[in-house]
């Protein structure tokens, strides 16, 4: 099971602790984030580099994303030792399997009554319940998500919303048919798009099932770069969670900046993913929280593609103790980006991951110091 307990509730959010994730003891404090994986790796880092140069505060819970691996599903099944081992992951880890890549594209119009579309570098793969169940079993991760029809854009009509919520319900029922074995902790995905009514309906339809280990809210229309409205997000989350038991872990996936994270924590979200730092790194950007974060929600994004750093051989971020900031300089990062060298992404991923991790530590600290409810 996912052993999760809420330790404190405040006006700014809730503090919790994940003792174990499936069979793996983690003692992971929340708010926090899963470590995003693509092709079974933190993007751009071999496991050797990740283990030796990236120092995170807590025992990680990894987010294994399917699209980069889906065309190899049969091979992983044949391999027989699970997806993590296939991807060279060291040790025994807590790993959550999600059918989506939060940094991948998710165009509308491709889901149908039997399957949802996931997108790989070579195009669309239709994922039906039977296939998903077999992938879940052969990948052997500690947990997995139920399938959700995510195709509910802002302009979705009533008919589309009804269909999406119905499909999500059907997928959920089919996935957990009594006679079928599906191994791992169940993280139930909650959809409903921009409609309060359908958010609540979906939560009631699938969220009250037994053996639910945690929830994940389908929120890809609200991630970094999209136009969002905090009031709307707040209402949708309220509708989603109000019919559900308050003690279960609440996850959300996709890139969210430090300001949005603070807002979502306040709405009761416990667990994010680390796609924001990866997204920035892949754009040649690094970020740094304001000194008074999270009192202020400010952060700075630095674009090392900018030539103005070419002659600046000072540390990228004063006070940051990560591998990148202790061993390299702004000017070198600029040089690596300017010459399109692979090391640029490696170093930026390490810094950004470190800073995002520190952000959650600061958020937890501020919740500890806040008045309990």
């Amino acid at each position: 099971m996912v052993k999760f307990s809420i330790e404190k509730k405040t006006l700014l959010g809730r503090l919790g602790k994940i003792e174990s994730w499936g069979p793996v003891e983690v003692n992971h404090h929340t708010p926090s984030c899963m470590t995003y994986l693509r092709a079974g790796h933190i993007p751009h880092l071999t496991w050797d580099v990740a283990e030796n140069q990236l120092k995170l505060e807590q025992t990680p819970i990894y987010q294994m994303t399917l699209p980069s691996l889906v065309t190899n599903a049969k091979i992983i099944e044949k391999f027989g030792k699970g997806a993590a081992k296939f991807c060279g992951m060291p040790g025994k880890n807590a790993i959550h399997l999600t059918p989506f890549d939060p940094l991948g594209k998710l165009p509308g119009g491709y889901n149908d009554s039997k399957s949802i579309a996931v997108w790989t570098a070579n195009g669309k793969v239709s994922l039906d319940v039977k296939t998903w169940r077999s992938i879940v079993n052969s990948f052997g991760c500690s947990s997995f998500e139920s399938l959700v029809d995510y195709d509910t854009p802002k302009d979705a009509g009533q008919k589309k919303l009804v269909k999406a919520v119905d499909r999500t319900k059907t997928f959920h029922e089919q996935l957990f048919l009594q006679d079928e074995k599906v191994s791992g902790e169940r993280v139930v995905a909650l959809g409903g798009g921009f409609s309060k009514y359908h958010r609540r309906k979906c939560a009631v339809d699938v969220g009250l099932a037994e053996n639910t280990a945690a929830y994940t809210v389908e929120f890809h229309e609200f991630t970094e770069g999209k136009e969002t409205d905090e009031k709307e997000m707040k209402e949708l989350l309220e509708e989603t969670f109000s019919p559900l038991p308050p003690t279960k872990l609440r996850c959300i996936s996709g890139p969210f900046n430090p300001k949005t994270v603070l807002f979502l924590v306040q709405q009761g979200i416990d667990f994010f993913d680390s796609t924001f730092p990866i997204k920035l790194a892949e754009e040649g950007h690094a970020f740094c929280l304001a000194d008074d974060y999270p009192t202020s929600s400010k952060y700075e994004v630095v674009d090392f593609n900018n030539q103005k750093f070419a002659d600046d051989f000072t540390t990228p971020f004063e006070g940051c103790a990560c591998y990148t900031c202790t061993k390299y300089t702004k000017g070198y990062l600029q040089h690596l980006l300017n010459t399109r060298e692979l090391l640029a992404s490696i170093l930026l991923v390490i810094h950004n991951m470190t800073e995002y991790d520190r952000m959650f530590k600061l958020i937890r600290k501020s919740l500890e110091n806040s008045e309990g409810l």
Partner: protein
Amino acid sequence: MKYDILARAGFARRGNLHLPHSIVETPVFMPVGTQGTMKGVVPEQLVAMDCRILLCNTYHLGHRPGHERVKAAGGLHKMMNWDRSILTDSGGFQMVSLSKLMTVDENGVNFESPHTGEMMALPPEKSIEIQQALGADIMMQLDHVIHVLTTGDIVKEAMHRSIRWLDRCKVAHTRDDQAMFPILQGGLNLELRKECAEEMAKRAKVGIAIGGLSGGEEKDHFWRVVAACCAALPPHLPRYVMGVGFPVDLVICSLLGADMFDCVYPTRTARFGTAMVRRGGLMQLNQKRYKEDFLPIDDKCECNTCKNYSRAYLHSIVGKETVGCHLVSVHNIKHQLDLMRDVRQAIQSNSVELFLKQFIHDYYGPIQSEEPSKQDSLKIREVPQWVRDAVNHMGYKLDF
């Protein structure tokens, strides 16, 4: 800075080259980090493989970020977080291969800037000035590079000019914590090579390079030039054969008496998903045959990639994720370093013939496989004639 010979076997030498940043065990392969980084491999990974020296390209660094910037960064070692030895080339070779409008006169090399399009001059003094700003342990003289297949008087002229430029480089060379290697020229003409070796050996202090090879000449010419240069050079100078990196070339040249090598091949080929293997030479991981192959690239290899990843996984990500490129690069660099370690051991333990036979047997044999295809098992070990000739020249025998 000094070079000690610890053991000899035939023409081959096992030595230690003491440089300001590390003791380099020779014969040695130097991986190439062209732009001041090793293609997605972090320096700590190179240290873990016991890599002690790498090469960076002056031409590239001189343009981006620029030698003054490298100097401002505290030198190349500091800029790239590498506290072991570095060798920089002179920039001349890349000008010849990368600049379309390159000309050479007595003053130096004239080339078109790849960024501004302006014609720029690189006299020998400027090459040394740039290399001193970069601060590598070993600098190379600017030489007059001509294509290896050029014939006629120009070969001799280029050789003599390279000697004159060596003298100018020596005058310009002021830092005493950097060595400078002369570069032997003379094309495929063994007489010119000998003359050049005599003149340059007089002027060399720490080591010397054999240049102008690996440019598409026949292998039969290649090894004979290396053999002749090694024979003509005095023993106290380590001999660096520039641009050599194919495993069989490394082994043959080491046994002919060469000591240092460099090549971009291991990292360049990794980007295209090709792994280097002792058994069978090259493994193109993007081929269908590896799709469900759960063996590591090489089950005898101790690199991190071989200890943790299968061919099937690598097949699935090469060309898709940068990690695929990093993993194959790590393996390929380790392959080269291990090969040279084995060459050194063979020289030290006086078991060169045994090593050589096994190496050639494996290299021209099939790729290791759980289900060898008929085609593979029927593959005859076709050892090229030039390898056989070189082996005979060394006085060893292949019994296959």
